[in-house]
């Protein structure tokens, strides 16, 4: 027993921990270099579900539908009248906020639909610009509503919203953007 105890004492085996920080530093630098903290930004959409043959699509009366048509040459047709991309935002806002006042525009915000139809050869860039204008129109409407509720902007309102609660602004002014099947093109 005495021999064994003596031997153990003499070795005094210990792992040196002074280089631990250096090893951790090396690993840290490796992960620092390889990490990419980029958030994907984009225009969110929800596609309509695959149409069922047995059930026809819900009828939308002509006045509730704001038709935007973009052809292969990049020309914009707004409610069958030649127009431009920069006109869309104003027109969508008038359409959604109409509340049945003007016969050419929507009955109520909940019924208002914006329909975007493209050609197969329409430039994608123009489609995104159009979609952007439509969404910006809704954002402006939501901003106005948020300001009337005492928030500086809609983004403030949404970040203040508790997770369980309904988003009342979006409930009141629902964004209904429909993407129509494109023409086969020529």
């Amino acid at each position, binding site marked *: 027993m005495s021999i064994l105890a003596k031997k153990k004492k003499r070795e005094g085996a210990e792992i040196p921990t002074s280089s631990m920080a250096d090893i951790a530093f090396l*690993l*840290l630098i490796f992960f620092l270099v390889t*990490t990419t903290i980029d958030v994907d*930004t984009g225009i969110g959409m929800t596609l309509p*579900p695959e149409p069922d043959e047995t059930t026809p699509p819900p009828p939308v009366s002509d006045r509730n539908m704001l038709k935007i048509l973009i052809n292969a040459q990049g020309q914009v047709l707004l409610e069958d009248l030649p127009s431009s991309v920069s006109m869309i935002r104003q027109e969508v806002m008038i359409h959604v906020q109409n509340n049945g006042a003007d016969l050419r525009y929507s009955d109520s915000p909940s019924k208002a639909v914006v329909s975007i139809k493209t050609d197969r050869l329409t430039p*994608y860039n123009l489609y995104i610009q159009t979609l952007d204008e439509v969404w910006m129109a809704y954002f402006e409407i939501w901003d106005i509503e948020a300001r009337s509720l005492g928030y500086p902007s809609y983004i403030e309102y949404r970040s203040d919203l508790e997770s369980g609660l309904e988003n009342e602004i979006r409930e009141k002014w629902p964004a209904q953007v429909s993407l129509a099947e494109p023409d086969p093109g020529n």
Partner: protein
Amino acid sequence: MAHFTKKSKAKPEISTASLPDIIFMLLIFFMVTTVLREQEVQVRTILPEAEALTKIEQKRYVSYVWMGPEKLPANRVGDTKVQIDDAVIEDLTNIRSIMYRKLSEQPRLIVSLRVDEESEMGVVTDVQGELRKAGTLRISYSSRRDISNI
């Protein structure tokens, strides 16, 4: 000289004993946030600019679909192709089964469409048709922030 003797008496030293712990903490943070496997994109995707952007915070819900002209050697570009994960999809009807499988693994899947700004709507519509058939209805048109208007 009196000052020097005073200094040696005080022994102001920062304790480095907790340094490894701090470093480890940082290390673990970066290990968790790192996505090691980045796909090599074989098509050119210059994203369009937009204003009405929303952020996708949950990266694990996102699946990317790249669309754009195929990158060729010597900075040339070819025909418009669709890429999902590592593979260029030649037959677009395959997208349905790929997306259906992804959706069953992640029910809250968001498909981020990274489309080159010079593409035409035809290919985008075809892919969207397949996504609708697969039932992956949450999509996002990936775009850059428009800097000129701010």
